[in-house]
């Protein structure tokens, strides 16, 4: 116990030595830069598949990949929120299926306009989230049980909504556009340029504010490196997909949602409260945070994202059927963020994990399809990568945990 301050002092002393780059490498090894590590995993997967099949890293295939992950990634955004609380939502797959069924039926059978039908689908998701959140917080039932019940019930509701027909083909172009529209090449460049300019301005403003207040600044090198990395990713991504049909609208939606939720989590009071409740709910309660309300809102957001993901999936499939939202959708949308380093115990993780995790899982699936593997192999490999990523996480973050007093 009395050795603890020395350990901390040593750690800080070590942390402040060396160049920013060697420091970053050390932190990477210590598991503190979770999203960088998943990028390494992703790069490995891409290199392996590219060696195995030279069609993998082509514009056409990478564009397909982004279309394939849009729905799962969107659902994962909500899953990250729930995982940050240290809870679980097993109903996201079923909710996505039910919401897409509601949207499709209202649009096709009842002649609602695309937008009101989609809004109704999202509203169904939100209502389910509020219901599950309220039941779990008011009656103190574990969310595992509440959402497991939800998984069954909403699946039933989906079958009920779809009725005897079983499959509903979507005709409304506005719904289909979500997964089939691509930005014009110049528009893709413009959007990327605007985002990069925004990031640079915000970083400059951030540094100026901290400088004026006399606070410690992050090294200029790390700011520059971050911005360069973001610019390379954005312009590089646009360059690649412009080699094919252009930037898919679905990708813009997914990345936009991730950015919005990232800002919500890291910049607002609500986001801070989510991390606090996930870290230590008793401490949060004593600090006056309305814990039950935070939980309920998070479940509402998660179900709404699930509904949106369901609508994206329906748009890509151009239909809703009885197995929409079923199969492995739930498992993959939870596995993604976990592969990207989101803790199941709450309080640690980033919503970028939803995007990166979906990319990892989507790449495995896409690459194995190219190599004509059976889905039996696909499942086993995805499972192994999930276990491997979490094992790596446990092995490296073990060092962090033992340092605690």
């Amino acid at each position, binding site marked *: 116990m009395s050795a603890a301050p020395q350990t901390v002092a040593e750690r800080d002393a070590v942390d402040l030595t060396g160049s920013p780059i060697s420091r970053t490498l050390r932190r990477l090894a210590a598991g503190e830069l979770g999203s960088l590590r998943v990028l390494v995993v992703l790069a490995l997967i891409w290199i392996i598949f590219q060696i195995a099949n030279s069609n993998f890293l082509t514009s056409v295939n990478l564009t397909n990949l982004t279309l394939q992950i849009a729905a799962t990634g969107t659902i994962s955004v909500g899953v990250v929120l729930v995982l940050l609380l240290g809870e679980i939502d097993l109903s996201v797959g079923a909710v996505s299926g039910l919401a897409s069924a509601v949207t499709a039926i209202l649009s096709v059978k009842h002649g609602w306009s695309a937008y009101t039908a989609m809004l109704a689908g999202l509203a169904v998701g939100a209502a389910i989230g509020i219901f599950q959140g309220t039941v779990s917080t008011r009656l103190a039932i574990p969310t595992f049980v509440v959402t497991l019940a939800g998984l069954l019930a909403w699946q039933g509701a989906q079958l009920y909504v779809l009725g005897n027909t079983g499959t509903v083909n979507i005709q409304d172009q506005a719904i289909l556009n979500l997964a089939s529209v691509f930005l014009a090449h110049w528009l893709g460049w413009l959007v990327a340029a605007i985002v990069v300019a925004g990031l640079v301005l915000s970083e400059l403003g951030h540094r100026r504010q901290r400088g004026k207040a006399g606070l410690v600044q992050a090294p200029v090198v790390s700011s520059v490196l971050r911005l360069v990395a973001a610019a390379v990713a954005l312009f590089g991504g646009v360059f690649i997909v412009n080699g094919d049909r252009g930037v898919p609208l679905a990708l813009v939606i997914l990345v936009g949602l991730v950015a919005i939720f990232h800002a919500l989590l890291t910049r607002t009071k609500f986001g801070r409260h989510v*991390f606090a409740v996930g870290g230590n709910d008793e401490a949060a309660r004593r600090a006056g945070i309305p814990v039950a309300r935070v939980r309920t809102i998070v479940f509402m957001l998660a179900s709404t994202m699930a509904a949106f993901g369901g609508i994206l999936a329906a748009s890509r499939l151009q239909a809703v059927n009885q197995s929409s939202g079923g199969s492995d959708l739930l498992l993959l949308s939870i596995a993604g963020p976990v592969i990207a380093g989101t803790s199941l115990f709450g309080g640690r993780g980033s919503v970028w994990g939803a995007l990166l995790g979906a990319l990892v899982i989507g790449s495995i699936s896409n690459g194995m399809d190219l190599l004509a593997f059976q889905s039996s192999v696909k499942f086993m490999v995805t499972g192994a990568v999930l276990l491997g990523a979490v094992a790596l996480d446990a092995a490296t973050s073990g060092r962090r945990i033992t340092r*605690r007093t």
Partner: protein
Amino acid sequence: MTHAAAVDPLGAKAPGGAAPLLKLQGIQKTFGAVRALDDVNLEVYAGEVVALVGDNGAGKSTLIKTISGAGPADGGTITFDGRDVSVRSPTDSKALGIAAVYQDLALCDNLDVVENLYLGREERAHNQPFSRLDEVAMEQHAIELLNELQVKTLASVRTEVGMLSGGQRQSVAIARSLLGDPKIVILDEPTAALGVAQTAQVLALVSRLKARGLGVILISHNLSDVFEVADRIVVLRLGRNGGEYPATDDQRQAVVAAITGVSADSAKAAAAAVPEPSVVSTLKKDQA
């Protein structure tokens, strides 16, 4: 008594004259047939440290809960700043200006020091629902506060609290209690489970609270800590007042006697038979 000599360097928080800031009279508390507190009195003045000592089950925690509102008293009167008040809930207590730091500290290990200090009272750039947090202001104020309290061992206020040592965590919890601008701070076993150097850190911090003109109620099992930092020692024994002593070294045996219920003479005899430090160290073991 020592409170008369208490000086308030900030000149803002001490009430005029020598009236106690907090006065408990005839506090009663029963749990079923068990009388946990019986006619207990306690006075706390601004700018002094009152140590509340007693054996396990003496009623220290129960008494603290009647002040913090976590377990309101069944009978007796509480006077705060000259007014009769009723403390029925933690909110009442907070509104009066009483802050409590419990043994479990209630910190979020996954958040950094600034985030923990401002937990539940985050500052925002604008007063709108989705306004961004004013991180710069919070970080500035956090650094100011920690500097004032001379908490110097933190490498950065952006360190995760889970990475801090026990003494640093205790310092963060105490600093957080000051953000509500309280007049009285209750510290429940702040040095339990701390090493020697960290205990010294925390005790120095307690002295600084006193120098800020706060009334401090310190609960501790560790008599050497108590004698080092307290002005006055209030002994509880079996739910009743067991005596009150100035915290001067010549009172050690009297305090030990009051805690154990042995008369001062026989305590002296026992102390004569055994070297005095071991009496204290036996008591220290109790906290483990």
